[in-house]
């Protein structure tokens, strides 16, 4: 064990395990947490009753939402999101949230209650083997059976969740450990010998990368969420401005670079921009920065970057050569490696090459974007709603989405000014993520406007969280894009399944009544002319608001790279 000790008390106080849990998470800087009580966490909740001046506990309505809210909080703030659930069903309900956080590298610590140690393995009431269940969906997990082990377990949990490539961690604590008494002394973990959080940079990899960059004539940077996770937005800007190369982002990487930056050529992937997809074959160098070549980004891997060398800047060695072979892997924290490269490259200008991307954008604008964002007739379009909201909030907002067509529209047409201004479920694609994540984001960044774009399908998947908004008064702006369909599946059915719309039509409730039942202001927009007034009304108050927009039910998201096709086969219609 190798821990640097910062004593929080000279004479160790005697606390219950439950008090030790709360004191430990406070020592880690936690002031907001999300949770749901139950039989095996009653002692922790009892202890929490005395700490309400130091921790704002948000009572959610379902444990899945507790984890998503913690994720939203973490993604908005860059801090560790904290949540707490009971054993058995409470714990299993949280699994989807953990899987989501694992896929999207979101730092979350989940504290779960567990039956007393003497009952473990006996199928006792509300017992599940939660450490076993969550092995595949956590970065690390641990079961604690003795009160004296609680501070060290929580200290390690926070360290592991936030360092290196971040991720979710579960601390499963038996009830007897919660009630036993222990001297309390807290030390923040700074090092775990079996775990390398910040790999040492191999200078040869930097030199090799520099050489490829200097020789390249048609390079493109592929920017991922890793930039924001490393807090390396400034380092990215410096690199791009010296290298002069165009940069495209993954879905989660979008707000790493301002949308308006002249080298920003848009979004990669299945519903990304035309240029960065169709130009893929012409690139002679791809510089991947904190991204993992998800299949939604690469399309058919055999055709991806077929004429390009690949430099891969990545903190997680297991991502290198996983899907796309890297000619030069640069293992390390981007905050370390990017400046080392920037310093050494000779610098360049790629005006003509970037102009080719601009020409692609013009084609895309004429074919798709103009009609999507500024239509003059027909039903309201999702893109125009996103465009109008983005124009209204400018740089003051964090955009949260759920999953589906609206997610792609929101990602495409929202303009990003600041880091951490898009919060969306990328890797797992979890419907129901949006509403709780928006709640978490707003509580983490109360000074920001939090705009949730959500479809009518995903909204109903965690709609119970409107009651959390009612109870906790969270000023989330909910833009419900209602097309009466599970639109993304409907789109695939239309394009690839002979228009057989099997179980994708939704008969929806009256959302105005649901809003009213939860004490949330509501406006319905059915006509284009009513949109501006409704947006103005929505932002007039600080409180939560639901703006339901009836959008075109047959709308499809384009461009589109069909599943299994090369990204250069991107379809514009």
């Amino acid at each position: 064990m190798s821990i640097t000790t910062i004593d929080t008390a000279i004479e160790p106080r005697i606390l219950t395990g439950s008090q030790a849990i709360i004191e430990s998470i406070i020592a880690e800087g936690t002031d907001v947490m999300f949770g749901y009580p139950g039989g095996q966490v009653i002692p922790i909740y009892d202890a929490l009753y005395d700490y309400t001046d130091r921790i704002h506990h948000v009572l959610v309505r379902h444990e899945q939402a507790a984890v998503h809210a913690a994720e939203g909080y973490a993604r908005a703030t860059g801090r560790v999101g904290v949540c707490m659930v009971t054993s058995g069903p409470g714990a299993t309900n949280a699994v989807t949230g953990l899987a989501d956080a694992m896929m999207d590298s979101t730092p979350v610590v989940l504290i779960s209650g567990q039956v007393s140690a003497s009952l473990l393995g006996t199928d006792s009431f509300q017992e599940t083997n939660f450490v076993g269940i969550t092995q595949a969906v956590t970065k690390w997990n641990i079961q604690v059976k003795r009160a004296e082990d609680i501070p060290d377990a929580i200290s390690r949990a926070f360290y592991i969740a936030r360092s290196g490539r971040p991720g979710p961690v579960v601390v499963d604590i038996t009830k007897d450990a919660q009630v036993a008494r222990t001297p309390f002394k807290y030390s923040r973990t700074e090092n775990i010998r079996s775990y390398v959080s910040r790999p040492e940079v191999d200078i040869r990899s930097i030199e090799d990368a520099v050489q490829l960059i200097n020789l390249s004539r048609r390079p493109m940077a592929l920017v991922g969420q890793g930039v924001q996770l490393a807090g390396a937005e400034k380092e990215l800007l410096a690199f791009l401005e010296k290298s002069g190369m165009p940069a495209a982002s993954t879905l989660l990487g979008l707000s790493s670079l301002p949308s308006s930056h002249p080298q920003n050529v848009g979004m990669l992937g299945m519903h990304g921009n035309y240029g960065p997809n169709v130009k893929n074959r012409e690139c002679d160098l791809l510089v991947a920065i904190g991204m993992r070549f998800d299949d939604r980004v690469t399309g058919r891997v055999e055709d991806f970057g077929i004429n390009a060398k690949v430099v891969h800047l990545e903190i997680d060695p297991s991502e290198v050569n996983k899907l796309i072979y890297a000619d030069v892997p640069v293992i390390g924290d981007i905050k370390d490696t990017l400046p080392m490269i920037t310093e050494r490259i000779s610098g360049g200008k790629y005006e003509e090459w970037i102009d080719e991307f601009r020409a692609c954008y013009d084609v895309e604008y004429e074919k798709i974007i103009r009609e999507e964002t500024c239509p003059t007739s027909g039903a309201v379009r999702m893109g125009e709603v996103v465009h109008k909201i983005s124009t209204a909030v400018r740089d003051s907002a964090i955009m949260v989405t759920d999953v589906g067509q609206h997610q792609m529209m929101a990602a495409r047409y929202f303009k990003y000014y600041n880091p951490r201004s898009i919060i969306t479920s990328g890797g797992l694609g979890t419907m129901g993520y949006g509403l709780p994540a928006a709640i978490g984001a707003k509580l983490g960044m109360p000074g920001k406007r939090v705009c949730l774009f959500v479809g009518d399908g995903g909204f109903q998947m965690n709609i119970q969280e409107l009651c959390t908004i009612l109870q906790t008064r969270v000023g989330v702006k909910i833009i419900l894009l209602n097309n009466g369909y599970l639109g993304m599946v409907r789109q695939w059915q239309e394009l690839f399944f002979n228009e057989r719309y099997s179980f994708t039509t939704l008969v929806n409730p009256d959302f105005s009544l649901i809003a009213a039942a939860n004490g949330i202001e509501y406006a319905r927009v059915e006509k284009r002319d009513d949109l501006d007034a409704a947006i103005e009304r929505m932002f007039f108050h600080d409180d939560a608001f639901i703006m339901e927009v009836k959008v075109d039910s047959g709308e499809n998201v384009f461009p589109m790279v069909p599943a299994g096709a090369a990204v250069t086969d991107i379809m514009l219609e």
Partner: protein
Amino acid sequence: MEKEYIITIFSENKVGLLNQVTTIFTCRNINIESVTASESAISGIHRYTIVVHTDQEKIEKVVKQIEKKVDVLKAYVYTLDQVVQQEIAMYRVRRSASIEHIVRKFNVRVLEVGEDYMVLEKTGHASETRELFENLKPHGLLQFVRSGVVSLPKSDAEREDLHHYLSLHDPQYGNY
């Protein structure tokens, strides 16, 4: 091309870690031929030896994913020619005169002689213990068990790398 690989893992002694490691093979649908685990030469650090049949590309990705586990210190992969490997097999057979010939021929150790049975031991490669198994079968083989493979690399690289890693990441290293 698929062939046999031997993976050596050095890890903390943590409940459930073996399960975490084997899950990585499960995800990629790789069958584990054998697995052994015990304390290593360094106190507090456990050593796993896993034998699998797969291809070079897959095994390299798997090893990186194993090493990514928070409680794993280091993982190494070897082909058969890079290691010296051994396993042990035990055989319970009926006592009979015909056994003596086999005991001599295969250089078998006799561990115990009961009233009507004998327990024999053979160390060697899987092919050798299997051969003895086949030879004993006609003579009243009652029970048979094989340990998994244990192995040591022929080169110094693993030892030096592990030493280097621990001196970097464990301030207590050297005081054990």
